[in-house]
């Protein structure tokens, strides 16, 4: 178990391929992260955001353009992967086809020259933890995807790594297996308490597994915080739109002042939302910003409601919750309700928005506009 510190990390790929990219095209741009001992860190972002590149630089499979990586107290920039004391589980499992599951798991220890008895002891210790004890004599080709990934993770942790790196371990599994293995990974982490870096594009995985989440986009770290923080207090429009299922509704809005209050208004819509008082210092009449509101902070009003009447455009009944989509101007706004009323498409409902729970973002930069209080 070790701390992991990443300081001002940059990665730029040389333009060797066919396409000429921009000269300042960094795959990873000024990334700094600190992971505590035993912490579970999720690196989350859309494909091509640099998260896997980051992981591969930690593992030593990719050169570092600039910056430093420390594992424990040691600067590992120039160390060979085998000397970094890491375990890496690959997205595509990367099991070696000619070897049995046992030999695949034991391979690292063999390469290190650990005695046969100890190898056996350690493989046998790890196997039940990942429920692969019945598979040890099989060849990788005969395993299912979920089994392969268990073996892959067993191989990564049998060496007792300082840091366990997981590269989208669930992305090739079907839905049910994915969920089962996700729970297994959580349980495994609780048992071995190994510092873990988990790369994923699935916000649900990151939210459910990680102690803290680093959200990246286009090589740049957007926000680093606990799941609660990134959900409730997103740093910018990107994070707000990426976290949550369905994601936050983000709408372009014009502020108007009416009497002493500010309201959010929307093009081609009657909807008006009173702005929270904490923003009043920042707002002015006619100002344009983006407003974000979670689907759970929008409600269907009762018969006496003063909410704005709108037509149901999309209705999804997931039984445990109901998702209603309505049109505000040209945008589709999703809301989630748990009450039992069922709606039909085209039906009129009254829309109520909890103005206190809205977030504001700069129209151009997408950065969060925070109230000073």
């Amino acid at each position, binding site marked *: 178990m070790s701390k992991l510190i990443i300081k001002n990390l940059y990665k730029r790929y040389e333009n*060797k*391929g*066919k396409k000429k990219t921009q000269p300042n095209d960094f795959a990873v741009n000024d990334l700094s992260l600190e992971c505590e001992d035993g912490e579970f860190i999720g690196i989350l972002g859309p494909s091509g955001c640099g998260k896997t590149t980051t992981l*591969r630089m930690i*593992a*030593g*499979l990719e050169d570092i353009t600039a910056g430093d990586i420390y594992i424990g107290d040691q600067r590992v920039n120039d160390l*060979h*992967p*085998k000397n970094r004391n*890491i*375990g*890496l589980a*690959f*997205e*595509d*499992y*990367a*099991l*070696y*086809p*000619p070897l049995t599951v046992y030999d695949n798991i034991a*391979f*690292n220890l063999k*390469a*290190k020259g650990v005695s046969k008895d100890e190898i056996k002891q350690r493989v046998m210790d790890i196997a039940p933890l990942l429920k692969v004890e019945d598979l040890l004599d099989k060849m*990788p*080709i005969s*395993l299912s995807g979920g089994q*392969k990934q268990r073996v892959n993770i067993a*191989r990564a942790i049998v060496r007792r790594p300082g840091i366990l790196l997981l590269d989208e371990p669930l992305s090739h599994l079907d839905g049910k297996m994915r969920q089962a293995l996700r729970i297994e990974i959580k349980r495994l982490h609780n048992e071995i308490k190994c510092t873990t870096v988990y790369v994923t594009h699935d916000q649900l995985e990151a939210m459910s597994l990680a102690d803290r989440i680093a959200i990246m986009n286009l090589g740049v770290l957007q926000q680093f915080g606990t799941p609660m923080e990134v959900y409730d207090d997103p740093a910018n429009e990107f994070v707000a739109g990426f976290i949550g299922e369905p994601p936050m509704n983000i709408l372009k809005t014009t502020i108007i002042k009416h009497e002493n209050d500010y309201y959010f208004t929307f093009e081609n819509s009657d909807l008006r939302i009173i702005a929270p008082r904490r923003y009043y210092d920042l707002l002015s009449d006619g100002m344009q910003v983006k407003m974000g509101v979670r689907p759970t902070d929008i409600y269907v009003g009762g018969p006496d409601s003063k909410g704005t009447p709108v037509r149901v455009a999309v209705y999804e009944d997931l039984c445990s919750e109901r998702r209603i989509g309505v049109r505000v101007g040209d945008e589709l706004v999703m809301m989630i309700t748990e009450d039992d009323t069922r709606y039909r498409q085209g039906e009129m409902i009254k829309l109520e928005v909890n103005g206190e729970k809205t977030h504001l973002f700069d129209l151009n930069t997408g950065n969060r506009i925070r109230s000073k209080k």
Partner: protein
Amino acid sequence: MKRKRIVGNAVKNGLLALYAIFALFPLFWMVLISFKSDAQMFNTTFIFDPTLENYDAVLLRTDYFKYFLDSIIVSVVAVLISVLAGVPAAYALARYNFKKKESLAFTILSFRFAPEILVVLPLFMIYQKIGLYDTYFGLIWVYQLITMPLLIWVIRGYFEDISVEIEHAAQVDGYSWWQVFLKRLLPLIKPGLVSASLLAFIFAWNNFTFPLMLSGTHVETITVASLKYIASDTVHYGQMAVAATVSALPAVIFALLIQKHLVRGLSFGAVKG
């Protein structure tokens, strides 16, 4: 349904047998006439007095073994060099991105389209100038045109089939790059390497144009030497058949030895799952 399948199988096997006869008959005929004396060559078909006279004449009374050895040296060394240079080249083409990569790969392949006769005349003049004419090295070098493209293209496909993560996993597990290459990748490409090498060997072994034009008396391969049995007055078909039969043996023996790899190797797809 079951009857349909039996009939289907019978038809399939019948057709395969027919093809086998069609393909093997020339070989059978070659072996047959190698036992015929010149006198019985044209007036008997299957029933004749078998004689070892041709074998005696070719194997013991000519320099046959010298030609045989020349062919072995030239073909085997040509294939070895192709393997040593071609496997790393195939790896580079499969794994790295560099400028004009596909053009380079296609150029290598295109060596196989050009008729040998097209390049052999200029080569003849160049070889005479720089002293490569009628040397082992000269032939081995020009044989790279035949063996190298084949190896590079087959092996490249194998490398591309191997997930790059397998290499990375081995590196994280503690192997250096060379160990990864020798201990992890080579075993995985072995079926392809073995079968491509065998094919390359056969193509080199059977080549006629290059040794005919680029070598003389010092280095003489069996394909060219077989012409010697066409004398000015008569053609010794029996002796030619002996020369051909014996020269077919190495390829047959190699193919039998590596049969296990051959089927898998030529049907591609080394690593799945």
